[in-house]
Each structure stands twice: as structure tokens, then as C-alpha cells.
């Protein structure tokens, strides 16, 4: 299973995580890989956690073993911390730094952690930590709805990503409405550049 790649994607309901994952999965299929994907989104519309797991390569199951993800793409900063049981020292952690604070935070014992500190701890522990302000990039592109395409662009910018940028873009085009292709293409490019600049 050397020629394989595991991607864990996490965030909050409504951020476009499933669509992003399907785009990657179809791109993998079109490149001739076997691919399986797991999505958990039972109560996602109600502000819950959404996560997907993509296994590209000769697998039967769609669940990534602990500490075996090649890439974790986080749409929200505490959700990437929650997914670290999938990470090892070589895992690429690419994540949006904009918090979505749980709405019942005041009923909870734990406060939302300090973002700067969170990023610093991740950087200390994981060599390939790429925090980006995806919300800002999406707004610069023209709309916050392109957030997921910004993060998709960031994901494919890491140098060991298994699929080509070209097939990702083709897959995006067959999954999203053509009126938004230009904007989404822009978002992918901007997300791509953001990580290239850090990395």
C-alpha cells in the first residue's frame, strides 16, 4: 500500500466539507486510483461536527487508522486538534484559523482556547503545520462561500499531495455550477498560493 494517501477533513456543518471531499474523491477516481470515503454528518445542519475520511489506494475500508493520515484539512481550528489521533509526525496539518465558537460555550466548563497559543503548540509538535486565514482569502476572492475551495487549494499545494492540480480543478468543474467556476478557480489558486508561501 505504498502508493496510497489518507486524507481526514474536519470542521463544522455548513462549511462545504462534504462537497470538497467528493471533489477530491472523484479526481482520484478519474486518475485511476481506487478510492473510498466515509462521511459522518448526522446532525451537521445543527452546528455539529462534520468529518470525512478519504482513503486513496488499495483499501477496502473507508476509516483511517489512528495516526495514519497523510493530510488533515481542518476547516476550524479546534476541530483539527480534535482530529490529532489521526496525525503522525509526517502528517500535513493545513487548517483555517477562524474559530466557530460552540453556541452553548457558556454552559460548558471548558472555554474556547486561545488561537495564537493553539497554533504555537501545533507548530511545536508537528513539522508540517500550515495555518491559514481561509475566511479572509475567501472574502478577498469575493464570497465566504468559496471557503471550501480556498482550503481545497491549500490542500493540493503540499508537495506530496497525490493528485494533480489539473484533475482537482476538472473535478471541481463537474461538481459545481458553471456560473461560479471562475470564482472557485480563483479561490483554489489563492488557497494554493497561501500554503506555497508558507511552505
Amino acid at each position, binding site marked *: 500500500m505504498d502508493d496510497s494517501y489518507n486524507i481526514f477533513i474536519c470542521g463544522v456543518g455548513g462549511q462545504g466539507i462534504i462537497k470538497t471531499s467528493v471533489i477530491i474523491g472523484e479526481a482520484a477516481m478519474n486518475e485511476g486510483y481506487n478510492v473510498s470515503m466515509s462521511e459522518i454528518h448526522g446532525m451537521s445542519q445543527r452546528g455539529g461536527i462534520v468529518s470525512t475520511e478519504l482513503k486513496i489506494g488499495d483499501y*477496502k*475500508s473507508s476509516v483511517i487508522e489512528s495516526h495514519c493520515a497523510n493530510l488533515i484539512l481542518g476547516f476550524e481550528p479546534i476541530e483539527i486538534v480534535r482530529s490529532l489521533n489521526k496525525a503522525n509526525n509526517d502528517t500535513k496539518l493545513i487548517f483555517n484559523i477562524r474559530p466557530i465558537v460552540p453556541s452553548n460555550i457558556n454552559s460548558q466548563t471548558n472555554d474556547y482556547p486561545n488561537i495564537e497559543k493553539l497554533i504555537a503548540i501545533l507548530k511545536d509538535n508537528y513539522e508540517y503545520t500550515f495555518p491559514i486565514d481561509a475566511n479572509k482569502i475567501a472574502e478577498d476572492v469575493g464570497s465566504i462561500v468559496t471557503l471550501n475551495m480556498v482550503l481545497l487549494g491549500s490542500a493540493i499545494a503540499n508537495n506530496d499531495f497525490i493528485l494533480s492540480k489539473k484533475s482537482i480543478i476538472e473535478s471541481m468543474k463537474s461538481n459545481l455550477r458553471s456560473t461560479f467556476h471562475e470564482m472557485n478557480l480563483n479561490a483554489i489558486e489563492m488557497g494554493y498560493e497561501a500554503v506555497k508561501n508558507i511552505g
Partner: protein
Amino acid sequence: MELKKLISGNNENLFLLGNEAAVRGAIEAGISVASTYPGTPSSEIGDLFSVLAKDSNIYFEFSVNEKVAMEVVAAAAASGLRSFTFMKHVGLNVASDSFMSVAYTGVKGGMVVLTADDPSMFSSQNEQDNRNYARIANVPVLEPSNPQEIKDMVIYGFELSEMFKLPVIVRTTTRVSHMRGIVEIGEININNTHSNTNNNINNTNTDNINNKEISSNVDSNVYWTKGRFEKNPKQFIPVPENALVMHKELVFKINKIEEIANRHEFNKIFKFNENNSYGNFGVITSGSAFNYVYDVVVKDNLGLDIFKLGFSYPFPRKAFLEFIKDKSAIFVAEEVDPIIEKDVLAIIAEFNLNVVVFGKLNNVFPLIYEFNPDIVRNSLNKVFAGIKSIGVNFTDSNSTSDLVNKCSSGIDFNLLKNLIAKFNNESYDSFNPTGSYEDTWNYNKELNDLIESLPLRPPTFCAGCGHRATYFAVKRAVEELDIAEKDVIYASDIGCYTLGINPPYETADYSLSMGASIGDGCGFSKATNQKVLSFIGDSTFFHSGVSPLINAVHNKSNFVVTILDNRITAMTGGQPNPGVPVDGVGDDAPEIPIVDIAIAIGAKFVRIINPINMKKTVETYKEAIEFDGVSVIIAKYPCVFVKSQKKKYSMEIDYNKCTDCFDCVNLLACPAISIISNKSVIDSSACRGCTTCVQMCKSKAIKVKRSS
């Protein structure tokens, strides 16, 4: 992928969700009728039929509940049509009464029942294993492991059903229904009638159906193929005289089907002991568990043969005996109940074989929750470590594959038996039924502290949800009546409103099943002197709340029934229900007014309120709680996901008036309001303009923004 590909594509590969593959399978099989009541993890199947049924010449409906859905397809199948119903696992409980009978009466056209189980309860009240239903009803079970198999097994299910004139269960789990994978799609079968298919075990159903003519004569709006019901009381009326015969035939059929299961390709052996060195350990498995077993066996190079059960009931005993003939020990890996394991143990006992079984019953595999690769690896290693511990000496190597190799080449049967005794003797305290493993990764302290201190992210009511406003008003009414919270019982039901369990609402004290809030209310109001308030959604009320409301009124109960009418079946993603003027395929349909039902039942206190009007809502609840008898409140306010919902107002906070009491944050838990730099802040992009916060703010600091 475009959805239309599900009906237009032919002979190509698509990246499909398990539920999409189920739809494609049914369409390829040429079904004429489909029905469901929505329920996760099967909901997407209905959503897809909702859009695609008409173009595929399929009659589709969201039935009022799963029992009706079962009856709709049973009748269609009795009329010679291929028909398909699908539901979440607990839905089959509701449908089971009719399901048990249709196993007796049988079918003419093929009938497939897909049950989507939910191990680990991602969105369910239990994780019951519906393979048990196959044993109760005596119907065959197919267990897919991935989307391709869902498609293939749905199609084969119809063939098998027609061959034996029996309904067939396809049992998925969340992990399979919500798995995406590459599916090779075939051609669509455009012939929608199947009562003349070959392989009939009897020849009673050879009637010729002239469906086109009938359908065009009856109704020009009919786009599906019609069948024809031929009277045959001996087949279709299970009165005792007939049922005695039917049960005999059913048992006969199941024995015949076992012969097919024994040689069916869905039951497949994966050989990993090519050089016969690891030969006498094996694994028998099904569903998702197979995927994990396969990946672990390959990755860890274990050399264990795998027997994958896809056609799992009736249990293929001959094929299994063939599999274990050279085995001294087998693992049984299955989610959730030890069902295969018990079949396996029975066969081993019957033939008095020296084969040791490692499964759930001797604590090797967890008894609850879904599996994953780590759990499967843990369970396998537990046995390998155990073998080591009872004195089998492997001094030359520690690798697991070598261990297995050694075992195979000379393990003593009695030693393995001792090992089982050891697992069985594990004290209850040390026994971990979840199989969860310690994350032994070496996190440094700072990182570990961060991971441990993360706030939770429970699902919550959306910004602008009417349930929040209702619950807030209820709590206030209780407070204003000076009733202690401990003297109030909130009986809840199955839907978004169950989220009232969480702080700050805490309006769910008891919940059993669909419609149960009203039945529970009857019980609590008789059994206690506490004030009882039941909450049920509109769709759930239609599903199974009407009968208990009749019970409540007739038996002179005394409690408040709130029907949270948000004009949609919200929890499952927004399907229509009989309370709205649209049917399952988007056509106009008669709307059934809940208020008329309540009045017709004879409730003397019936009010429709708009929960967003806080003052009126609080007053109505005070009146209802004091009312002696059954009071019905219909809290009518559309879900924010109902189409055409427009944002009504924008809010702003006047910080000159704001006293930083944070009641708006602490009492509403609205996703649009948060505390930033010690101030309440409204996120205008998240706010839906419901005005609940405006009305509850004691210092009148939150206001509707004047449009500029």
C-alpha cells in the same frame, strides 16, 4: 457528479454514496413502487427518489410511517410489481407487524426491504442489529460492505425475492450507507413487471399483465407501471387455517435458499495462505467489519484466510464447513450482535469439531459499537498475545505473522480452549465492552492539555429556530406559575426538539420512540402529580402521535401536548409531511391540518400559537398548564430550512443600554450571539431575524435594526 447520472448513465464508473448506489440498484432492477419514512442513515435514498422517481417511471411516496411504507410496497409486490422500501433500523420496529405477515403471504413482484442500521448511534436512540429480524421473520439477508455491493445486492435481492416469492432484507450500516466508493453501473431494466420471471419455485403467478393499457385508462398523471392483483385468499389472508400452511412453506423456502447461499458468490473466501503456512487460523466476517479485517490482514501480513459473508441468512452451513475443514481456530468479526458467531458455534457443536472460536462471546471482540481497523487489530492481537501467555513459546520472533505461523504448525487444541477460559474469566471490571483502545501516542504535556481541554460541539438549534423560542417561553411560564422545575416532567420525542436535552433548555426528561411523548405523557399524568408537558414534531405527530392523543383524551389524562409544527420533517434533512400541501415528488397534495385532528379527537383546549410572539406564548402556556385535561398547543413556525424563508429583520445591540448580563447568550444559546471581548455580539450573517433575543432582553438593549 450530477444527480441525473443516476438515471441517465450506463456502463460507467461513478463515485457514489452507498445510498445513491441503492437508488441506482433499484432503478436498474426496474422497480415500479418505492416508499419510505425518512430516517438517518437511509434518508438520502428517499431524497433521491423524490427528485428522480418521475423520470424513472417509479411511484414514490414519503409514507406517514414505516408500517404504512411497508404495506404500500407489500401490496404493490402482491400486484406483481417490483417494489422497494427502505428505512432506518428502528423504522423496521414500526413496520415489523406487517413485515412478519408479508413473510407468510409472500409476494409476486420482487420486494426488497433495506434496513440501515446505526452502530455507534451517530443519530439514533439505539444500535439494534436488524439481522435479528431475519431470524424472527424467516427472510433472507444480504449484507453489503461497500456502495458497489449495495447496488449489486439490491438488484439481486429482487431476483431472489421473485425466485422464492419472499421479501428480502438488505442490511446496511451507517458506515456503508454513508461510504462513498467507485461503483460500476450497469444498464437500466426498463421492464417494470416481473411476475413472469423464470426460476419460480411454483407456477402460480404466470398471469399476463397488460399494465400500459390499465394505467392510461385510469389516470393520465400516472407515470409508473401498474400491476394487477389476482385474488387468492389462500395466499394473502393469514387467518389461522391459511397461516398454518404459510409457515410450513416459509420454512421450506428458507431451507431451499440455504442451498443457494452455500454456493453464492456473495459468500466469498479470500485466501491469504497461498503456501499453506498460516493455514489453520481464519476469520469469518460481514459488512463493514470485513473491510477492516481485510485491510488489517493485508497490512500486517497476517496470512489469515477470510470468509466474507454477503448472503448471511440463511447461514451457508456447507460453505462454512468447507472453509473450516483445515482450521483449528477462527475469529468471528461482526457488528453489532454475535449472530454469525452463534450460528458458527452451533455448527461446530453439531459436528463435534475441534475448532476454537474467538468472537464477542469470549470477550475477544467488543459487544457494542461499530468497529474500525484499530479495534479489529486490537482484538486479533489480544488472542495472539494470549497464546503467548499460556505458554506457547515463540522465542525466535515476536512478529504477529510469525506467531500465527507457529500456531498453525502445531498449536494444541486444549491450549486454545484454556485461552478462551482465560478470556471468560476476565473480571467484569477489566472487561471493556467497547473495544476502545488507549491512544498510546506520545503527546507532549502542552499538546495533551490542549486536546483534553477542548470545548464540546454538540448539535444545537439553528439561529432562528422556533423550537428555541417555544422552549424559552415554556420555561418562563413554568417560572411565572411558581412551579419548581423538579415538579415538571418534559416528555420528548424523536426530532430536532430532542436537542432540548442540552442546557440551557433542559426540556427533555424522557424519550422512547416516535410518537411516544404523548403516550408517555398519558402515563406520567396518571402516575404522578407532577406537571407533564409533551413535545412532538409535526411529522412525528402524523407518524404515530395521533393514536396516543386519542388515548389521552379518551382516558381523561391531564397534561400539555405541544406539537412543534415547523412545516417540514427537519431532522432528516427537510422532507415534506402530510401537514404541508406538497407530496414526496413535489406535486400539490391535500394538507392535513393538525388543529382539525386535535379538535376532532375531542381535546377541549386547542391553541395555535406563533412561538416567536413571546408574551402571547408564555400566557398560552400558563393557561394550558393550569387547564384540567388534555391541552394541545400547536407551535407553528417554519424551520429555517423551509424554502422561501426570508430573513425578516436584522438586530443590533445598543451598548449604552446593555448591562452585560449575558442572558441572551446564556439562556438562548443562539449560534448568532456570542461573547467577544466581554460584550454580547450578534453575528448579522448568522442571524435569521427571529427577534426572540429582542423580546427576552430585560434591559431592552437588543433592537430591530432600522433599514437604511
